[in-house]
């Protein structure tokens, strides 16, 4: 109804009624009037149409019984409304439609075909309607569902809807298109009759029997075709508008040469053979056609191919027009639509609405977009040639997907090292099993606290690892092994140093009591190995360290000059020099962690009793910290004694 208003100027008056009469009379499936678009001159778009095919679900609000004519007219209106609500977008089409409105699930394949036709737009000279308008001549297309998409862009769609015959002829300022699910051989007098009897006169003409579809074919084999096709058979079983083909297409008629194939259950196979059979009737390319169709039906594992028919083999009537300047764009669009349609209708798809919307939106975009049309610039891409295969057959042996693998496999572990969590595979084990929503909620408190504990341990381990020169192994045992080894080594070295210094010191000063000293260090290291007693051992040590510190302050000079802290947001780079002493690195790390700095890289070296440390760290507390705080903290450690 809305369309009526919208199209008033372009569509002749009472056209829908006329189309209805004509199409009902010849008992075809639909009639469409393509009119020249008001918005886009030079383009044919949907003007009006009448649907006369099979109907799946009837929906109505009227209590009044309608007669068949009214019902059919109403159906066409409902289909139009459905199309409009769908093309309006995803924004919940439901509220916009009255309760009796159709939803896509209510449609038969043929109705769907009719509905999707509404989204098509043809340039003049392009597509079946466009060419009809350009030439002014009618086009009669048999086997439309096998036609090349260049000839009949909706052929795939037609296939899903079992539309076999499509006829276009110029009318008024547009083109009328008629379609039937049967094979109807070219009969120009039929067009003439429709024109004169129905379209030109505004009066209702009821010719009782014009063209019985099957009669025009006059061939038993043809009649058998629909019967072989389970899909057609199925839909024909519940005809609402009296399809007399059913009676004619009784299985008894199927006595042609293709009998052995009828046992095949695969519907596509049967369809394919039907195609072949039909071709035999048209006397075209029989052998090639037939084998081709069979070949296709065998190829059922391929979902894409399933709905398509090989180009170029099934040649429709209008061979000469193949070279029409159909740009690839239209093809892309229409294949897109067809595939959606032909497949979606049968599946109760969760994504139905979205896909449908996407489809309808897309088609418009594609018509407008310059995509794939080569404009002024030439493509950087060249046609793919298989020959280039030979040239560089010897591909590189080095690891494939090098960077991709690094990104996926190694970069995460860089972060892991930093964050100090190294969950071994066993730790992940508990989370295996099936899909569980809301990991955290499901895990429960125990697991959470366990995880927290593990994270803390891991964090400390990572600090430890950063302090100990180690091989590349990162598992916990190796870290501890390395630490033990390192500490033992240090102990040894310290002993050496101490003993050599003892000599020099004892020369310079006599205050010091070497035995005491040695005793202390060994004591410290005992603690250190357990590593938990870190704090207590630090405190214990304080008292006896004083004199040593005094000794060393002299070559440190101004304390402040030895700390540089540069910051970038929450990342801090600290360079720091101070007198070396046992365990000072631990103290520094400890102090930094107290002020919420998370160290991810530590480099240290000791030369002549001066420790140089380079620390990269990240502030993980809330708020901000300043370089001053860090300096203070470090000074506390370095010169605490």
């Amino acid at each position, binding site marked *: 109804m809305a369309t009526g208003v919208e199209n008033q100027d372009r569509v002749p008056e009472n056209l829908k009624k006329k189309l209805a009469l004509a199409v009902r009379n010849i008992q075809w499936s639909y009639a469409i009037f393509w009119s020249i678009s008001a918005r886009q001159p030079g383009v044919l778009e949907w003007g009006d149409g009448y649907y006369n095919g099979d109907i799946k679900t009837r929906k109505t609000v009227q209590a009044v019984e309608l007669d068949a004519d009214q019902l059919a007219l109403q159906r066409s209106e409902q289909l139009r409304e459905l199309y409009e609500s769908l093309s309006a977008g995803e924004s919940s089409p439901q509220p916009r439609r009255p309760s009796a409105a159709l939803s896509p699930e209510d449609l038969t394949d043929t109705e769907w075909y009719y509905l999707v036709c509404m989204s098509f737009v043809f340039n003049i000279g392009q597509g079946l309607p466009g060419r009809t308008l350009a030439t002014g001549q009618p086009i009669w297309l048999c086997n439309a569902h096998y036609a090349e998409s260049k000839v009949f862009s909706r052929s795939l769609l037609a296939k899903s809807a079992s539309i076999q015959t499509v006829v276009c002829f110029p009318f008024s300022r547009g083109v009328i298109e008629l379609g039937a699910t049967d094979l109807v051989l070219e009969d120009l007098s039929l067009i003439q009759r429709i024109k004169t009897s129905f379209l030109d006169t505004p009066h209702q003409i009821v010719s009782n029997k014009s063209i019985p579809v099957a009669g025009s074919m006059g061939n038993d084999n043809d009649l058998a075709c629909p019967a072989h096709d389970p899909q057609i058979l199925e839909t024909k079983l519940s005809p609402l508008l009296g399809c007399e083909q059913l009676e004619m297409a009784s299985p008894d008629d199927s006595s042609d040469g293709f009998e052995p194939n009828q046992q095949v259950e695969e519907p596509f196979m049967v369809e394919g053979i039907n195609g072949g059979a039909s071709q035999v009737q048209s006397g075209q390319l029989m052998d090639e056609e037939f084998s081709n169709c069979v070949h296709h039906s065998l190829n059922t594992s391929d979902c894409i191919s399933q709905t398509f028919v090989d180009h170029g083999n099934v040649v429709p009537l209008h061979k000469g027009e193949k070279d029409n300047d159909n740009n690839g764009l239209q093809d*892309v669009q229409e294949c897109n639509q067809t595939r959606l349609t032909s497949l979606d209708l049968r599946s109760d798809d969760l994504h139905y609405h979205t896909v449908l919307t996407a489809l309808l939106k897309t088609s418009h975009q594609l018509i407008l977009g310059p995509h794939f049309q080569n*404009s002024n*610039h030439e*493509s*950087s891409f060249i046609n793919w040639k298989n020959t280039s295969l030979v040239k560089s057959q010897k591909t590189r042996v080095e690891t494939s*997907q090098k960077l991709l693998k690094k990104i996926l496999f190694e970069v995460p572990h860089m972060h892991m090292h930093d964050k100090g969590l190294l969950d071994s595979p066993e730790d*992940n084990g508990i989370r295996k099993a099936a899909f569980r929503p809301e990991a955290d909620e499901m895990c429960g408190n125990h697991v*959470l606290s366990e995880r927290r504990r593990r994270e803390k341990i891991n964090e400390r381990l990572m600090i430890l690892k950063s302090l100990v020169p180690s091989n590349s192994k990162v598992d916990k045992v190796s870290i501890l092994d390395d630490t033990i080894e390192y500490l033992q080594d240090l102990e040894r070295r310290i002993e050496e140093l101490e003993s050599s210094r003892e000599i020099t010191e004892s020369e310079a000063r006599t205050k010091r009591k070497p035995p005491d000293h040695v005793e202390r260090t060994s004591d410290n290291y005992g603690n250190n190995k357990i590593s938990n007693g870190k704090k207590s051992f630090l405190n214990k040590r304080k008292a006896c360290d004083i004199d040593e510190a005094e000794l060393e302050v002299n070559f440190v000079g101004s304390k402040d000059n030895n700390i540089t802290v540069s910051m970038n947001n929450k990342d801090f780079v600290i360079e720091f020099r101070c007198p070396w002493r046992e365990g000072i690195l631990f103290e520094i790390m400890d102090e930094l962690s107290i002020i919420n700095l998370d160290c991810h890289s530590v480099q240290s070296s000791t030369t002549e009793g001066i420790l140089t440390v380079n620390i990269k760290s990240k502030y993980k507390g809330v708020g901000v910290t300043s370089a001053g705080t860090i300096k203070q903290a470090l000074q506390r450690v370095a010169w605490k004694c």
Partner: protein
Amino acid sequence: MENSTQESHLRPDNSITYESPYPLYSMALSSMPSRSNLNHQRIAVGSFIEDYTNRVDIFSFDPETVSIKTQPTLSFDHPYPPTKLMFQPNRKSPSSSSSDLLATSGDYLRLWEVRESSVEPLSVLNNSKTSEFCAPLTSFDWNDVEPKRIGTSSIDTTCTIWDIEKGVVETQLIAHDKEVYDIAWGEARVFASVSADGSVRIFDLRDKEHSTIIYESPQPDTPLLRLAWNKQDLRYMATILMDSNKIVILDIRSPTMPVAELERHRASVNAIAWAPQSSRHICSAGDDAQALIWELPTVAGPNGIDPLSMYSAGSEINQLQWSASQPDWIAIAFSNKMQLLKV
């Protein structure tokens, strides 16, 4: 490795190269035209340096003059190489907000506000309620229907769905048995992910109890590394396998059986991208230094599917993006170069 004959068709009007001081991996094309010049498009590239300090550089591309304008003020540091960069999708008009949003993934999901002459960090999204630690992210995808939603994939087998407006986790799902390597949105509430466990799974946020496995790699546990969902036809998605030259095209309605396998790369495939405006075209790039554009055919021939066209770069192509706002251009990254190619 430089293949001069193949590169000879490069002309100043159909391609442009950006050379970075460092190797590049991640790359993103903005959906929003620049404010100062509507024809310009922002491009972000992330360095790949195996160290803490990495960079993200942003520059603008003018398809009219086929030129690139660098903007040094729009560079920022990133801890370790970003695993993915993405601009907020569907920002067609610059008037809706003055600046563009860029997301990066690595240790955390980070949001950056890209202004005319500066980049400001907006937020760092950490999904761990209990600690500073959050398992590193391998990838993420920004929902183009619901732009406040970002899904991340992590090596801890989970996917996390963020509400970036509120800065909160909408949900976290244990998605796979092993590391999750990529995630892609289909609709506002439906996403899919691929994993080291070799499966492609679809999740619906309305029914978190279930996921659907729609593909499993033929050799058990061959990791699937990347996933691309056909935005023009949501029934199709594409994935790539570790150490494989195949692009596997899946139809979500026929689980387990791929509808097509594209096998014309001569080495492993690194990246895939569906055409932004066509449901039948996909581009892939790999270690064979080639970018191939494929048209999914009506019928697969007995010898498999041949690509439509090809482009040969100087070395392994690691990254590929097909611009939604400039569908005539495909961006690739190899070694330290980013190249824009006219389709």
